[in-house]
């Protein structure tokens, strides 16, 4: 399925909607289909410059090119301030790149669409809706009938382990439970790509481990493409097929490491696996190098 990734904006409409992220330029040409069929996301020579308060241009991302295969679990790893979240927002269509372009299934990304579902560190659940209301939001927006959306959403809530909490409000849940709701809310509209922005960063170590396991179990059922931003090396190696290591500002791709560990992965086994340990040490070393670069430019 391909979502409406190329919806242009009508002239004059909400041009100045201040509360909404800046909208990429209008594109009226039909989206060209390029690249190999198996490429889900293509990022081509993307750079991002921000204007800081002092009118100085701050280069957040510099010349990033990356292709993500359909069904791959790819982590973007780097020190804070390396622009890894910005890269995710560009793929999400929330931020338009200053230079270059990103494509999903060969179509240039010009805005958010239900083919790319975000999960944020801050959960970003609608506080005025219950768990069920939050999860049903996407299907209802997609025009799914109320009764059907209700049934689907209840199944998803059960899948993420929150059966019985359908009528709770987000404020009544713990951080880990909120993130499960956020994941269910995103899965509910069947995105082809999951965009996870440090989703477990705000959780305690124990909850984090449980959610990582559960995420892998869910992922192994339908193998969606996942783009996962994190600053935890363990997490990246444990979850991913590929780890993209980035350098500190301006963010560049330092190295892409293929994680050739067998799946399904069991945490207890992996921790003892010398191959896993080697990946972790190797990547940690790369990150140390990038930190040094950051300190002595």
């Amino acid at each position, binding site marked *: 399925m391909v*979502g*409406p990734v190329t919806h242009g*904006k009508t002239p004059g*409409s*909400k041009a*100045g*909607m*201040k*509360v*909404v*992220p800046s*909208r990429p330029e209008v594109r009226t040409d039909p989206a060209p289909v390029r690249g190999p069929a198996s490429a889900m996301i293509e990022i081509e020579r993307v750079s991002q410059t921000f204007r800081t308060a002092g009118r100085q241009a701050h280069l957040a991302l510099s010349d990033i090119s990356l292709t993500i295969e359909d069904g791959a679990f790819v982590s973007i790893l780097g020190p804070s301030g390396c622009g890894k979240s910005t890269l995710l927002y560009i793929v*999400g*269509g*929330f931020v338009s790149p200053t230079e270059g372009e990103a494509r999903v299934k060969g179509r240039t990304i010009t*805005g*958010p*669409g*239900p083919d*790319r*579902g*975000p999960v*944020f560190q*801050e959960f*970003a659940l*609608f*506080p*005025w*809706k*219950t768990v069920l209301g939050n999860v049903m*939001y*996407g299907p209802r*927006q*997609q025009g799914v009938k109320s009764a059907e959306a209700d049934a689907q959403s209840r199944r998803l809530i059960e899948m993420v382990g929150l059966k019985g909490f359908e009528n709770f*409000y*987000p*404020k009544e849940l713990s951080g880990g439970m909120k993130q499960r709701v956020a994941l269910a*809310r*995103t899965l509910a*509209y069947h*995105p082809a790509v999951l965009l996870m922005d440090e989703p477990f960063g705000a959780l305690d170590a124990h909850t984090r481990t449980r959610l990582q396991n559960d995420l892998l179990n869910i992922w192994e059922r339908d193998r969606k493409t996942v783009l996962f931003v994190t600053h935890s090396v363990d997490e990246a190696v444990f979850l991913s097929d590929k780890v993209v290591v980035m350098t500190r500002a301006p963010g560049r791709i330092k190295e892409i490491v293929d994680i050739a560990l067998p799946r399904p992965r069991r945490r207890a086994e992996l921790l003892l696996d010398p191959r896993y340990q080697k990946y972790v040490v190797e990547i940690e070393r790369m990150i140390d190098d990038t930190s040094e670069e950051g300190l002595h430019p």
Partner: protein
Amino acid sequence: MNARALTSDVLLGIIPIALAIGLWQAISSFGYAPVTLLPPPGMVFTRLVQQLLTSSFQQEIASTLFRLFAGFAIAVILGVGIGLAAAASPAVNAVVRPIVRVLAPLPKVALYPALLLLLGFGHESKITLVAADALFPILLSTYYGASMVEQKLIWSAMAAGTPRRQILFKVVLPAAVPSILTGCRIGLVISCIVVFLAEMISSTDGLGYRLVTAARTFQAVDMFVPLITISMLGLILNGLLQGLRSYLLRGFPEV
């Protein structure tokens, strides 16, 4: 907050009011003020109960309440509407901002003579004055509430397929409800004050009018009755708004 804490809070809140009434009683019983000028609380409350049972006094309350509600309702509709529009569109904001800056500090009661000439001595001039005074706190809090909506809520809704033009009503408005209600609470208190004031300045009915006529004829007891009535009305209305607030904000974290 559990029920017991709530009860003890209410009890604590009653203490200063009881003290004020006690002070009032002391002033009149020790003869610091003559009873004809400052009647003791017992006399006032007895008179209040008597008055509340008469249909003429009930009608005064009804006209005051009608003006208050009409003015407050207009202020809510305009304030929320303009506040949202200004938050959503820089063009609207550019137009609204200078007007708000010029008009907000203006004492609206200064417009009242002009309103009387334009709209007459009936309901319209008073409703307009109430609306004009209650409008700004509601407008400003709506604007700030709608401007501060967490970006990622909007992104989440857009990714789920919400068209850009629906974001305002599906995300921004519900997310701004807590601060809109804070503005409404301030607006409601202002409405109580202003409707009374307008009726005092020029009216042929209403609680403010009752106070002025009593003062002109040196009926001290009748002067205090409308005062206590409006303050009790304010208390009741605030309680109702508080109830509405806890219903609407049942999902929001407590602040």
